[in-house]
């Protein structure tokens, strides 16, 4: 039932709005709306019940194992939420004077410094509001750098075919042409393809390392040399930073600009699809182009915002204020809880969990896409052979996992591995959880042999069975309409 179907004309919540009707008004009559908006008229209790019940129809980290590859679904500590929601932080207006926000700004400054350290970059700006915005800002800085050097013939960005879709979409949003390069059999970028693609027209290369294939690009230093020699810059997509945190710094790998998904590596909540936060880090030569605002500490120990006046070459402002401040606070609290020892432990135990799960699934009879490689914090299982023999697809298996109380791994990404499941068990999962997941996967393998049609019809135990995507797109129903 929709919230609108609980609605009764005239029902309202007397505690939640001013009791007396405001009498004073000078709004011209011709500007007033003629009919009220379609908002439900429901009691507070009905609202609470409705949305509590809806929440119960979701899988979440707090309720299920969520091995979603490339998404780093780790536990979101409750303290991070509780302390970021202290009333003074919530009440602070973004345009309040700096001297009334020194506590908040101290957190932001320290977060910048910590992120500089773990990434090996010279400067960090916290303003990007999601991974894709971090990418946009990063590529804008590459562009600004070339333009400032009168280097206007660089029109292409090179992107491996395993990359997230946001990479090519971002390059295009920045006015670049995308040159996609292939991956070799071992899951590394094809070096011959890279050499052939690089030239005086190359503005930069966007790379995710470890890649979305779950392996570390061994040739990253060589790639860096090739691109830099051609005059291009290197962009690091930090989607998989969880795999190498405290082990390898993107700055040491030769990257000029990076973004870090705080909603992945630094455990801020995914919130059913945001808000994220994706600070960008830059090497020395890109410092002047960082987006505003960033926080600086004055000689007197006070914190203040750097604006256009301080950074005249900045690519500018990408949010009305300073990005997703509350998300940044959560990440700051998380890094303070972890401390320096906690940083490398993240990558160590994420990697341990992934390699253990890979070994177990291999033993259970699943085909690993890159069997000769170590897993990073994630790995790929391919169901191509199973599909050829039984007709059961990766999506069918994913839906059957839901029946067994596990969120599905990422399916059909990266696109270059057929019938793939990208599996990422974050460091916060225990061995028992991984073992139980393996047991469920084994059960499904048996079901695929004995009852393939049942698996193809999954899910069976969820509130709904398989939903009709085609109907949804063909007969668009995007808003509820009251029966007339």
């Amino acid at each position, binding site marked *: 039932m*929709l919230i609108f179907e609980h609605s009764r004309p005239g029902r309202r*919540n007397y505690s*939640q709005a001013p009791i007396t*009707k*405001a009498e*004073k*008004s000078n*709004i011209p009559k011709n*500007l007033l*709306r003629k009919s009220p*908006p*379609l908002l439900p008229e*429901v009691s507070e209790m009905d609202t609470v019940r409705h949305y509590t*019940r*809806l929440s119960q129809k*979701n*899988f*979440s980290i707090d309720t299920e194992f969520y091995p979603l590859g490339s998404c780093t679904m*780790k536990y979101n500590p409750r303290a991070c939420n509780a*302390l970021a929601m202290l009333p*003074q932080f919530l*009440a602070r*207006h973004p*345009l*309040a004077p700096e001297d*009334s926000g020194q506590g908040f700004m101290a957190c932001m400054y320290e977060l910048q410094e910590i992120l500089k*350290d*773990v990434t090996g970059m010279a400067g960090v700006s916290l303003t990007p*509001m999601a991974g*894709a915005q971090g990418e946009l800002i990063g590529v804008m800085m590459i*562009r600004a750098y070339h333009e400032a050097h009168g280097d206007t013939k660089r029109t292409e960005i090179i992107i491996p075919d395993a990359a997230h879709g946001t990479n090519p*979409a*971002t390059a*295009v*949003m920045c006015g670049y042409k995308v040159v996609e390069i292939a991956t070799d059999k071992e899951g590394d970028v094809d070096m011959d393809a890279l050499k052939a693609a690089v030239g005086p027209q190359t503005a930069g290369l966007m790379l995710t390392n470890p890649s979305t294939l779950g392996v*570390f690009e061994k040739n990253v230093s060589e790639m860096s040399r090739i691109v830099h020699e051609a005059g291009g810059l290197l962009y690091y997509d930090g989607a998989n930073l969880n795999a190498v945190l405290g*082990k390898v710094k993107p700055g040491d790998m030769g990257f000029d600009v990076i973004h870090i998904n705080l909603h992945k590596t630094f455990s801020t909540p995914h919130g059913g*699809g*945001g808000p994220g936060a994706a600070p960008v880090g830059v090497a020395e030569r890109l410092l002047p182009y960082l987006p505003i605002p960033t926080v600086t500490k004055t000689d007197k120990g006070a914190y203040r915002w750097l604006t256009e006046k301080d950074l005249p070459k900045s690519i500018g402002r990408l*949010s*009305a204020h300073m990005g997703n*401040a*509350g998300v940044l606070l959560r990440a700051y609290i998380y890094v*303070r*809880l972890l*401390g320096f020892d906690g*940083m490398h432990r993240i990558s*160590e135990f994420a990697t*341990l969990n992934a*390699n253990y799960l890979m*070994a177990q699934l291999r033993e259970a009879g699943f085909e690993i896409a890159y069997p000769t490689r*170590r897993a990073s914090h994630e790995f790929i299982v391919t169901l191509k052979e199973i599909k050829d023999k039984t007709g059961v697809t990766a999506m069918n298996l994913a839906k059957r996992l*839901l029946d067994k109380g596990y969120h599905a791994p990422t399916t059909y990404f990266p696109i270059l591995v057929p019938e793939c499941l990208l599996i990422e068990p974050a460091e916060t999962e225990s*061995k028992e959880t991984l073992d139980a997941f393996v047991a469920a996967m084994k059960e499904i393998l048996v079901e695929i042999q004995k009852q393939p049609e049942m698996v193809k*019809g999954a899910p069976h135990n969820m509130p709904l069975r398989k939903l*009709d995507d085609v109907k*949804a797109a063909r007969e668009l129903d*995007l*808003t*509820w309409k009251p029966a007339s």
Partner: protein
Amino acid sequence: MPFIPHTEEDIAEMLAKIGASSIEELFDEIPPELKSGKLTRVPPGLTEMEVTRLMLERAQADGFYSNFIGAGAYDHHIPAAVWQITTRGEFYSSYTPYQAEASQGTLQLLYEFQTMMASLTGMDVSNASLYDGASALAEAALMAVRQHKTSRRILIPKTAHPNYRKVLRAIVSNQQIEVVEIPFCEESGQVLVEQIESFGQEEFAALVIPQPNFFGVFEQVDALTNWAHQKNALVIAVVNPMALALLTPPGEWGDRGADIAVGEGQPLGIPLSSGGPYFGFMTCKEELVRQMPGRIIGRTVDLDNKPGFVLTLQAREQHIRRSKATSNICTNQGLMVTAATIYMSLLGPDGLRRVAAQSHANTLALVEQLEKLPGVKRAFSAPFFHEAAITLPGAVTEILQALKAQHILGGLSLDEFYPGQRNTLLVCATETKTKADLDQYVDVLSQILKKINK
């Protein structure tokens, strides 16, 4: 080990299964020369008790003020139920609803949100949110250019939020789109059709119309909408969703209505929180839906014909279309939309209207009292919503400092954004302000002005 459950025994068993002698061995594909040294600027870990103490100290350092600043982020009462439900783990810690059968809660909520926003703005369809109001405007401009096909020129009045104009420019200039700022009437604070006629002589893709504008002033939206449509351009409305509880929705502006409406969703149950996370909303006419960026939820049925919800029109999006997507946006502001949907349900049409009307009445009452002080006057003659520009007989920065000493954040100085508006303060009094709050503001300001003018 914070948040890592492994015992020594677990580690040993897991390594044995993998066939590795140590965890470090699992990193053996990383070239040794790339392995970094110790972190030097990350402090040692703290317990939750220690972090709590630290954060309480930081929060207390920031303190509380009686806030009269608006300028795009507004202080409204947020019912307790909003964030108690929103931060339930099932909403807080879930991912984007790609697995529809395991995400019906989030998906249904987003469908309800789309319905509410479409109705509030008088449009046909809504997406499931963008990052914030400013970036939503930039996406709307890109959308208008894609739709218009022949012009890459966007007209935006200087009465639009200065930071929105900056964000717009930063994002769309990557695609050789020209942003032209058009003037306003210094007397009324509005954009007047007769003053902008010359800007329409060259073709343009869209006209941006803020309602209310950055000064709180109502624009002549019908005349502006018709003007742009006569020139074959689209109309992008930038609206405050709270104001729409009272005002004609963009879908009904002029003869044909605006084509796209965007804005900052923060007034709908989102705390000020130093500027974010908030959420941008975007609604539009049905014929533009395939040009719309971001996630969109549709209602459909399952194998048993039971109604359910899915992400739809994904062929527009980056994870399918890659370089041909309508935008690079992936993550939106889901949790903020969860809060806003619960907020709008709790308030209902009447509650939202009361909040909007009281905010308008409070600001009007405050301005009327302030006008009685010597040397204080309205900067603009046109009526306003819940925010107004007032001219003071002295330097605004100093006056604001003096107000702050009395725990009042008196508003925003316009000097920085509008060098022409000397000694002008943008002040906002929402429904959260009582008559006593307004009186106190006027008293304190009156004393400060007396001192200055001595």
